[in-house]
């Protein structure tokens, strides 16, 4: 760890302690614990969404706004199958498969046609795709109160006075597991090596004979599975409403920014911090009304801080 990194970590810890201390000042420890634990629970959802985006962005250069919509389509399918009395594990699998199919369809057939455009245009094009999916999903399932319940919702443990269900633990540990798994995949496998090379320089990688299409398809596949899993978790833990799940991508991007669209461990930490600060803001009478703003402010600060001192004079590729 270099000196700067150490300094950054120290700064992060000091800032978090300061913010949490300020917000929690004078409140009973039990209440602080409640909001802290609840914040970790929400934060791990932000992180999970962000991780899925970063995995794909690194390999393909596409920031995918449609992952939320794919997850929503999957979750609605799972709900419908459950209503028809299908065996629950099959409905969960269906959720992941639907999201996978939607994401792969975009990655395989539409994304290559935009390969030469700038990253921003690639990103906004996925919003068009998200609208198509969201429109179809809302058309197929008219507005009605719905919910998905997983068996793990009934089991739980106590943490800081808050009961944490096993589902939330799954989300939390899955995000850590995915971070480690992806790291290992990128570091140890041939495809991982090729992905890293694509992320570094597309044109050079193509010259070197790296099978871009294959590598990218795998990346889209991984992100599709993650989108499906995230959608199922959002549906269970947040709300089974397609619009809400679709637009969860915006705070998820905030988490992704904390890792500079690159470092998965930082995405996780960023997502968790956002959740915690957002929840702790409830303790401040002045700020609680606007607490969902926390992810955006944090992401903007992180982005600006990480670029401090740089002057984009001779910057090459973006």
């Amino acid at each position: 760890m270099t000196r700067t990194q150490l300094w950054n970590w120290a700064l992060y810890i000091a800032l978090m302690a300061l913010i949490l201390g300020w917000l929690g000042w004078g409140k009973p420890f039990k209440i602080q614990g409640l909001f802290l634990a609840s914040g970790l629970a929400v934060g791990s959802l932000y992180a999970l969404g962000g991780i899925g985006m970063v995995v794909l962005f690194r390999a393909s250069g596409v920031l995918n706004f449609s992952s939320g919509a794919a997850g929503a389509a999957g979750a609605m399918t799972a709900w419908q199958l459950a209503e028809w009395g299908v065996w629950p594990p099959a409905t969960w699998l269906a959720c992941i498969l639907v999201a996978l199919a939607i994401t792969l369809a975009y990655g395989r057939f539409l994304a290559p046609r935009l390969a030469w455009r700038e990253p921003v245009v690639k990103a906004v094009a996925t919003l068009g795709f998200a609208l198509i999916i969201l429109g179809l999903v809302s058309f197929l399932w008219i507005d009605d109160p719905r919910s998905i319940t997983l068996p793990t919702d009934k089991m739980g443990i106590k943490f800081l006075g808050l009961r944490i269900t096993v589902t939330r633990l799954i989300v939390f540990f899955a995000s850590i597991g995915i971070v480690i798994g992806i790291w290992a995949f990128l570091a140890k496998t041939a495809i991982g090596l090729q992905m890293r090379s694509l992320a570094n320089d597309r044109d050079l990688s193509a010259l070197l004979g790296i099978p871009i299409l294959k590598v990218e398809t795998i990346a889209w596949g991984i992100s599709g599975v993650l989108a499906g899993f995230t959608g199922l978790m959002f549906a269970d833990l947040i709300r089974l409403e397609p619009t809400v799940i679709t637009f969860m991508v915006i705070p998820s991007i905030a988490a992704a920014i904390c890792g500079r669209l690159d470092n998965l461990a930082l995405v996780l930490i960023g997502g968790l911090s956002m959740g915690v600060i957002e929840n702790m803001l409830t303790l401040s009478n002045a700020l609680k009304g606007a607490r969902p703003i926390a992810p955006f402010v944090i992401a903007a600060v992180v982005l600006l801080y990480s670029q401090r001192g740089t002057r984009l004079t001779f910057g090459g590729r973006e």
Partner: protein
Amino acid sequence: MTRLLRVTPSGAAGLAFAAFAFLAIPLLAGKLWLSVFTSTACFAMACSGVAFMYARLGMVSLTQVGLMGVGGWVMLRLNHAYALPFEINLIVAGLVTMVFGWLLALPALRLRGLYLALVTLMAAGGLEIIFATFQFPNGGEGFWGVKTGSAGAFRRPALAQSAEAYFRYTVALVTAGFLLIEFHRRLKPGRAWALIRRSEAAAMSAGVNVTLYKTWAFGIAGLLAGVSGAMLAGSLGLLDDATFRASESIMLFALAVVGGARYWLGVVIAATLYRILPALLNNWGVDADLSFVIFGAGLLHAVITAPDGIAGQLGDLLRRVVRRPSKDTPEDRPKDAPA
């Protein structure tokens, strides 16, 4: 001076279009379509800001609709707090939003490309929450000025009390906005922007104050957003936070790309797709969900097939029909009048 005032063919077409809108549309359209066209004109002005930043400087702002909200908020706040005339409120709303644009420019000095876009998206996300939490002033007490019950009265400009006159007023302002950009493009800032777009290093070595001109661009985009938001507030008499979601800002940028950010016609097409198409689909009784699908599919199709935007395609088509092959490089075509 002659160079500054020279009217290109495209520019002439643009002015003719504005004149047609000004003179003919209020005579032809009913109240429904006047209301649609007024809001389309407002969004065209906001869109021209995004389009010009993208086409001239390669900078992507995903906050434009959020900034419109800022302008609209200031307009409503002033309208309900003081008895000042509409025009003064409009100017203040534009200037306040310009300052917001400058604030947004701070990161732009260090960031570019996707990262700049993302930091503006975060700003849009933040504004969305602010608007949703505090709402738009409607005549209540206090700083936020929100009350329950019916909204207070909105004073339209003395010149434009009726819907027809207000539409003409908007068209005149939008035309002025387009001309503002075009004059900038033809003067020193335009040359500086062209250099910055090519290479900041080259611009800097040529003695261009990169910081100043980038900030300036954000200020203009902010001004246009602020004025258009204030005009939108005047069109409805009140605003709702649903209009200013972060996803709407992304959509406006996407449509600027689809329409063709380099051309005035592109901006008009973008605004048409943004406001007239949904109104048409709604009027035809197309299911709201399905019009999402049509809209998304159209967006994707245009982004994929028309790299220069629909306006660019139309221009090529026109040139082919007139059989006058363009010798200009795509980068410097002179006939791309107002961005």
